[in-house]
């Protein structure tokens, strides 16, 4: 039996709700670190960063599902919806921490940041793109929209991923490696799709 088949067999008993349960682990670990005082002297930034990073990691993980099937024969499609919804949940928590613990409800400054600060604007656009995706991540919505329109809508994943990575690159001082690596991963994963599409197009003409 191939490795892929073994993995598929191993994953067979995994129910979607279990993915959600797994998805609470980063949040639980974060809570633990908050209560044990393990987040250093500026826990607010640490929490904000950790939630943003988990959201971005989940977005990248979601983008891996299709190429894994296409190029590695590993089918994780069953879990894609949960990964996407979790990404949205972490992005929401990230946004909430920004409004509450970081900006502390200073609405004038929040409003100003939301229109003036490119990295905030970009993060917000990414978040607003994830919102309809999260709202339509249920069978009822798929039925109502029809598969084609639903798929079209979910193409928003791509610009959202790019903007989320750009948000990270833009907010740091100088050029640390980490944000660039995420950007590279997103660009590579999207590039792969473009490449596949082009190859298909040339194959059919």
């Amino acid at each position, binding site marked *: 039996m191939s490795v892929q088949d073994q993995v598929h067999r191993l994953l067979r008993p995994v129910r979607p709700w279990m993915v959600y349960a797994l998805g609470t682990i980063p949040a639980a670990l974060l809570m633990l670190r*908050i209560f044990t005082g393990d987040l*250093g*002297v*500026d*826990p*607010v*930034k640490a929490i904000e960063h950790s939630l943003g990073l988990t959201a971005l990691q989940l977005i990248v993980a979601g983008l891996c599902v299709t190429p894994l099937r296409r190029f590695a024969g590993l089918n994780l499609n069953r879990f894609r919806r949960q990964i996407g919804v979790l990404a949205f949940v972490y992005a929401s928590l990230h946004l909430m921490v920004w409004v509450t*613990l*970081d*900006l*502390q409800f*200073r609405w004038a*400054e929040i409003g*100003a*940041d939301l229109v*003036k*600060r*490119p*990295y905030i604007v970009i993060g917000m656009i990414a978040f607003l793109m994830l919102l309809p995706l999260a709202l339509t991540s249920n069978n009822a919505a798929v039925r109502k929209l029809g598969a084609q329109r639903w798929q079209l809508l979910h193409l928003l994943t791509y610009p959202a991923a790019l903007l989320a990575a750009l948000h990270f690159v*833009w*907010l*740091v*001082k*100088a050029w*640390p490696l980490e944000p660039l690596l995420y950007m590279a991963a997103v660009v590579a994963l999207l590039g792969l799709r473009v490449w596949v599409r082009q190859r298909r197009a040339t194959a059919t003409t």
Partner: protein
Amino acid sequence: MADRYTTNRLNSGLSWADVTPKEVFLNRRQWLAGSGAMALAATLPRQAQARIEAAKSRYSTDEAPNSFEDITSYNNFYEFGFDKTDPATHAGGLTISPWTVEIDGLVEKPGSYDLADLVKGMPIEERIYRFRCVEAWSMVIPWIGFELAALLNRVGVQPGAKYVAFTSLARAEEMPGVARGLLDWPYREGLRLDEAMHPLTILATGLYGEEMPRQNGAPIRLVVPWKYGFKSAKSLVRITLTDSQPPTTWNMMQPNEYGFYANVNPEVSHPRWSQASERRIGGLFAKRVDTIKFNGYGDQVASLYAGQDLAKDY
């Protein structure tokens, strides 16, 4: 601007111990008259217990200092890495003795000064200052140090000098961020001469009554409390008096984001984030407070910039 420099008085035969120029002294009295609240400083319960002999200073704020842990585990010191915990993790191996500081340029007594000689006889004070990072967080830090003016007077500033340039250590063997080339090393900063001569501007050699921790810029660093933190260059190896504005690291890298002056100013945003308020480091519910122009030192320093458009000279 040059006509406002009274450089001549620096060479007017002041004795070695006579470190407080009269003009500065008058400044100080004026300022004191305006802030009776400072008298309370001495009665504060959280006053640091100085182990290094350091006189209390009227320039200290009466705000409660951040903890030693806050101050020594949350540092931007890119010579050791980009993360704020990198300096505390990686600075332990930094050799700080022997240490010499090169003083050159337009000075009467240029030379390579051994740190001990340089500090000897300086009037060491504790200065509890607010510290405002350009990233919109802040702390209150009980520095130990002496006025830069005292040192400049000792070495004698030549009449043509208009700026002071500072260079930090760049030692790849002991500094992983230097080895990895994170910035264009060595780190360089600069002040206009009147800023450098201002009594609030100090060379700090310690904090909380102890020798300067390595992650905070041991063994000697600049502290300019009315400017964003990056102006306060750490681990100084060179001080140069010049007649033209010296290039400074962040300004060279991103001139539209980091100006030469970098005075704390809530009215002038960093292009990427607001400077209207700051989070005072201190746990999960650390309060965000309004940022005050010149970091609250306006009474003492605003006059340095009379007639200057601070939105342009940011």
